[in-house]
C-alpha cells in the first residue's frame, strides 16, 4: 500500500462501493460511479482526502461489504453516511465531485459539459414589477439621530 495513492485492492473495493453509491441507470442513460473513466477521476482527484477515503474503504470492507446483496450494500452505505463520520463524508464528496463533472452525466441532466469560463451563462432579468409592492413603503431602518434626540 503506497502512502500517496490507493493500492489495486483498495481501488477494486472502491469500484464496488462507488457503484453501489451511485449506480448506472440505463433508463436515464447515465453511467455509475464505478464507470472506468469516472473511477479513474475519483482516484486521481482524492488529494488531501486520501487518508480519509482510505479509512472509509477499510471501514466498509470490514463489514463484509463484498458478500452482501445489493439491498444490504445500499443500506450499509446509507447507514454509515447517516453517522456523518468524516471518512464516509469525504468518500461521498470525492465520488460526487468526480461523478457530477462527467460529460455523460451532465448531458443527461441537460447541462452543458464545460467549464463556466469563458462563455458563462445567461441569467434572465426577471419581472421587476414584483418590486412595486415594496418600493413605496416607509423606512424600516431606525434613524438613531431622531431616536436619540428625543
Amino acid at each position, binding site marked *: 500500500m503506497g502512502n500517496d495513492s490507493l493500492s489495486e485492492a483498495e481501488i477494486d473495493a472502491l469500484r464496488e462501493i462507488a457503484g453501489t453509491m451511485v449506480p448506472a441507470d440505463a433508463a436515464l442513460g447515465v453511467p455509475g460511479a464505478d464507470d472506468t473513466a469516472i473511477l479513474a477521476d475519483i482516484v486521481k482527484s482524492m488529494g488531501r482526502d486520501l487518508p480519509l477515503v482510505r479509512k472509509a474503504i477499510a471501514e466498509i470492507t470490514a463489514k463484509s461489504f463484498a458478500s452482501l446483496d445489493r439491498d444490504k450494500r445500499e443500506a450499509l452505505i446509507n447507514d454509515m453516511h447517516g453517522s456523518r463520520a468524516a471518512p464516509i463524508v469525504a468518500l461521498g464528496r470525492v465520488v460526487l465531485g468526480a461523478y457530477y463533472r462527467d460529460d455523460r452525466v451532465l448531458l443527461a441532466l441537460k447541462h452543458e459539459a464545460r467549464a463556466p469560463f469563458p462563455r458563462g*451563462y445567461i441569467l434572465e432579468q426577471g419581472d421587476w414589477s414584483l418590486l412595486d409592492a415594496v418600493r413605496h413603503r416607509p423606512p424600516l431602518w431606525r434613524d438613531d439621530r431622531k431616536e436619540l434626540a428625543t
Partner: protein
Amino acid sequence: MSDDDRVDVLIIGSGASGAAVAWSLAETKMRILCLEQGDWMKSTDFPTNGRDWEARRYTDFDIFPNKRGRDTDYPVNDDNSPMKVANFNGVGGGTVIYTAHWPRMHPSDFKVKSLDGVADDWPIDYWTLERFYDENDRMMGVSGLPGDPGVPPHKPPMPPIPLGKTGMQYAKAMNKLGWHWWPSDTTIATMPYEGRAQCINLGHCTPGCAQGAKASTDITYWPLAIRAGVELRTRCRVREVTTDEHGMAAGAIYYDADGKEHFQPAEVVIVACNGVGTPRLLLNSASGKFPNGLANSSGLVGRNLMLHPWPMISGYVEETLDGGRAPITNLWSKQFYETDASRGFVRGYTLQFNRGMGPANQAITSAAAGQLPWGRDHHRVYREMFEHRVGIGVACDDLPEESNRVTLDPVLKDSNGIPAPRIDYAISDNTRRMMEHGIARAEEILTAAGATRLYCSRTALNAPGHLLGTARMGTDPERSVVNEWGRCHDVKNLFIVDGSVFVTGGGVNPTSTIQSVALYIADQMKQRLANLFD
C-alpha cells in the same frame, strides 16, 4: 528598497482594509510598504476555468484555511467553536473568496447601548462613515438598486444583478407574506466598470472570479495604490511588531518565502490582518514592556470575538430555477433587522436569499444534509433537487462576549514556527433566540414559495465565520484597544484598521464596513499628520 530601509508607513496585510488604507494614504507621498504573507492571484488559476471548478471549493479554494491548507495559510485551532474561521491569505485577502454580498451596517448597529441597552456604542456613528461607505462603493464598484426602504438612502454606481427565476420565486413569496425584500447590493460588476469586465454568470463566485467581475482588492485598490507609489511585498509573513525603548512601534520582523528572517523598520505600523490574525500578531508581539501582548493593557486584545452565526434553511420547489448558473447573491430582506422586543431578543438579522448550486455542489450539499440517498434511488431524488433549490441564510447580529476570544495555541504553530491562534467561541442565548426566530421565518418564506423537503443547518456547511471585535474601538483605554480613530491607546504609532476594531458586528456581511472604517481611519491620520503621535 532594501530590507534595512526605514519606511514611513508599514502596513501588515493586503486584504480588504490594508488595501483601502494603502490607497488612501498614498496621496500623502509617504513611503508606504505593505507586507503580505500570500501571493498575487491570477485569474487563470481560479476554479471556473476548469471542469473541476466545484470540487476545488473543498480543496485549494476552500474558505476555511484548515481545509485549504495552502503553504501561505496558517492553521487555526477552532476545535472549541461551533463555527469555523474563514479567511484567505493572498493579495486581496478575504475579498478573493467572499460572496461579494455588500450590505452596510445600519445606523442602529453603532448605537446598540443607547438604543437597546446592550453591549456598547461605537465611538463613531453611521453618519461619520457614510461618505466613506460611498467612496468605497465607487472604488470597489457596487451593483444595486437605489430606493430600498430597508436601509439608509444610497446610490450604487451600477444596476443590480438580474432577479432571475430564483429571485422571482422568492419575490412572489415575500409579496404574499407582505414582507420586505430588495435586490442585494453586491460588488459584482453588472456593466464594464473601471477596467473590470461585467459579470457573465460563471456560477458561484465565492472561490474567485475568472472574469474579474467580482471586486477583490487585488484588482480594485491595489493597482491604483501601487501606481501611486506604494510597495507591496508578497510572501512576507510577519512574526511580531517590535517596540523601541520609548514603547513606540519600531517595525516588524518577518520571514520571506525562503524562511529567512528580516526586520523592517517603520515610523508608523498599521495592522490589517483580520479579527483573528491581528490579535494573534499582537499577542505574539509580547515583550518585557508589553508582557501581555502589544497594545493589550486593557486585556481586551483577542476578546469579544464575533463570528456571525448564520443558519441556512433550504428547500426544493417544483419549478426549474437558475441553479448554479449565476452568482449566489440574489436578494435580501430587512424585515427583521431592527429590535422588536416582542420577538424575545434584542437586535436582529438580515435574511439573505441565495440561488441554487451547480451539479456537484448540489449533490455534495444534499448528501451531507442526509437528503440525497445512495443507491438506486439516488438519481430520482437528485433530479427533484437539481436546479429546484431555494435557500435562505439568516445573518444574525452577534453581540460581543468577552469569553469569546482569540488566544495563542500552546502547541500549534505555522510553517515558520509562529504560534497559531486558538478560538474559543460559544453562541449566546440572545443570538440563539434570534437564530430560531430567523429559522422559523425562513421556513415560512420557503413554504410560501412552494418549497418542500425543508432542511436547516444551524451552523451551515461553508458558513462564513466573519472575524470581528478582537481589538475594539473606544474612548476608554480600559475598555478598548484603539481610540476612536484607530490608534492603539498604548502605542501611539500603531494603528489597527481591520474588523478587529468593530464594537458590534451588525447582522450583515462586514466587508463594506471594514473598508469604510479603514478609509475613515486613513482620513483621520491624514488630517493629523502634524501631530499624529500626540
